[in-house]
């Protein structure tokens, strides 16, 4: 594990823990957010017959950096009647919530921030912080749009956590592990060992499992879309109704924190879906490193596969965002409570029955 490696190098457990905690931020989240914002702009632009950013750097590749510099320079506006303490804590809390989720995500077989047996449980728990942060932001802004947006966001995230958890539960039942590392390791080999294709059960059980795993995959993908407030579930920041929801009053770096958290969250949920269903960091067809006998190449390949899967799912999120209209609040709740939750419940029972066959 990476922690042991760094611990051996530095000799100080505290220092190595800090380094391990900071690695995903600087090696992954920040570069990912930079790329994802650029991607989002380019993807939406090309879907809409536009060019998108073209001026800063080649085809606008430096646009996001220019935007970050602009955001850093901006005045930090706090309105007179804002609740200053909550107003300042909220973006940090939201960011912490989505950042902490990265601790239990296995990027490769040797890098996982916190290799604990309750990995997926930890992720679900810490992302709950995001809800508190959003509600704080909405309340402290002293703005009706913000409060409405925050209330909608909280209602939405909480209702969609239930189908997510039910699907996760069915996988935990199937594999007997809550550790994302173990889960990924179990899906090793070829792509037909992925949980989406029934994991490593016998052929008969696999064939029975595949349709239900597919249903579970679709449900968890829809629910995670809602949890990160992406279209068609972007009701909390519906710009035609609520200007931009809970972060209407934020500017400068605090706004950037929300923005960063949103993109980090997008990847976090995609990574969880990938780790649960699409084999995590496992390659779908063996490793080049093993083939040519270069063992050190394997983790790099694994990291690449993980990024490809995660970014692929993020791209689907973007594709949906720029294609679909937005649901109304009551319709959103209907989708969760009347369709997703009952279906995932039945799905859970059926998967349970098949696995004890």
């Amino acid at each position, binding site marked *: 594990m990476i922690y042991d490696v760094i611990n051996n190098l530095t000799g100080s457990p505290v220092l190595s823990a800090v380094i391990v905690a900071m690695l995903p931020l600087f090696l992954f989240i920040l570069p990912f957010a930079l790329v994802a914002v650029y991607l989002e702009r380019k993807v939406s632009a090309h879907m809409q*017959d536009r060019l998108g950013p073209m001026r800063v750097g080649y085809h606008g590749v430096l646009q996001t950096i220019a935007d970050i510099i602009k955001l850093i320079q901006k005045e930090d506006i706090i309105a007179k009647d804002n609740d200053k303490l909550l107003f300042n804590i909220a973006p940090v809390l939201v960011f912490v919530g989505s950042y902490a989720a990265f601790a239990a995500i296995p990027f490769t077989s040797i890098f996982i921030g916190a290799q604990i047996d309750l990995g997926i449980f930890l992720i679900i728990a810490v992302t709950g912080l995001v809800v508190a942060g959003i509600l704080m932001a909405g309340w402290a802004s002293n703005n009706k749009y913000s409060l409405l947006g925050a209330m909608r966001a909280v209602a939405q995230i909480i209702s969609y956590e239930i189908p997510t958890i039910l699907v996760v539960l069915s996988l935990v039942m199937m594999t007997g592990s809550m550790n994302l590392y173990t889960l990924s390791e179990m899906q090793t080999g070829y792509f037909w060992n992925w949980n989406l294709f029934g994991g490593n059960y016998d052929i008969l059980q696999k064939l029975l499992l595949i349709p239900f795993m597919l249903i579970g995959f679709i449900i968890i993908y829809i629910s995670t879309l809602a949890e990160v407030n992406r279209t068609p579930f972007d009701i909390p920041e519906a710009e035609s109704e609520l200007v931009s929801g809970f972060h209407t009053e934020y500017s400068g770096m605090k706004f950037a924190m929300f923005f960063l958290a949103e993109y980090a969250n997008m990847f976090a949920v995609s990574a969880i879906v990938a780790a649960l269903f699409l084999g995590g960091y496992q390659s779908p067809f063996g490793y080049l490193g093993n083939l040519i006998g270069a063992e050190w190449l394997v983790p790099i390949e694994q990291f690449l596969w993980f990024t490809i899967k995660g970014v692929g799912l993020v791209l689907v999120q973007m594709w949906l965002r720029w294609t679909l*209209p*937005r649901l*109304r609040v009551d319709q959103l709740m209907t989708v969760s409570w009347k369709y997703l939750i009952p279906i995932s419940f039945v799905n859970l029972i059926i998967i349970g029955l098949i696995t004890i066959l």
Partner: protein
Amino acid sequence: MSFESKENIENKSGVRTEEMVLNMGPQHPSTHGVLRLEITLEGELITKITPHIGYLHRCFEKHAEAMTYPQVIPYTDRMDYLASMYNEIGYVIGVEKLLKIEVPERVEYIRVIMGELQRIASHLVALGTYGVDIGAFTPFLYCFRDREKILHLFEITCGARLLYNYIWIGGLSHDLHPDFVRLTREFIKDFKPNIKELNNLLSYNKIFIDRTANVGILPVDTAINYGVTGPNLRASGINWDLRKDDPYSVYHKFDYEIPVGEGKAGTVGDSWDRYYVRVCEMEESLKIIEQALDTLPDGDIASAIPKRIKPPAGMIYSRVENPRGELGYFIISDGTINPFRVKVRAPSFVSLQIMDELCRGHLVADVITILGSIDIVLGEIDRE
């Protein structure tokens, strides 16, 4: 949006509840201009909506009294700024009737072509912004891409993209550009598949239908009582179009249908019908333009333009089917070079009044859906 509490009201069960008044606009992204809606809510449900207008008031009608007849034309452009060509057509037809002049056939054909192109452009804005209201951003840009081509056609014809001053009393300011016919045919060829694309992307989208079908149903009798015209009336199932029912210009020479609401997605007269009637109307407008281009006569466009415009004393009401409904001009002449009075019957002004009827009993989120579906232009509402 701002809250203010009204007097407490006691409901049947004896629980004291409060009616809430919510102000939407004038600075709100979805009010399609500077409109303020005073929404009275009981919980989530709307009990009353009062539109407040006048934020774009520019005294058009008073201005017209101080202008000579041709000078009024640029002012008509600024009423419904999304359908300027059609505003000009309505006014010019009225003055021509007062003057009793015959217009060359080529001029009439070009007016029809321009009017129908303008109808498509106006509907494209309506449909695109409606998508944005519902949360679909991409169709908006697709619509504006196609509108851009129409604006280009207008630009090569008269030099302006939005406010044209193109249709003159007795004629036109310029003849067609040599490339105009070819470019228009190209546009029609490109645009037909784009309507299909719009339908697949937005009109038949499940989420879009869920948001708009059975929302804001306008019954036929209500529509007639309020005097609603145009696509909003036709969506309620009535085949009433001044191009057919009170023909002006050369519309009687063309073969086209008047689409009416059929309630394909929900009930007749709901928001989806109002949206879809506009989509169908664009197809019909394309038919008219194609036929007009095929039979476009030659001639001098300036031959009937009078040297001195001084209509005899009298009054006239001229009405045309503008993209939003019946646009009427009531012009009184006292025999001088200035009109004595120009009164405009604006279709958006009438359509806005049905907001209260349509929104009662709906949720707050539906206000935006309904407001977008009746397609108002604030410049026209505040014209007086």
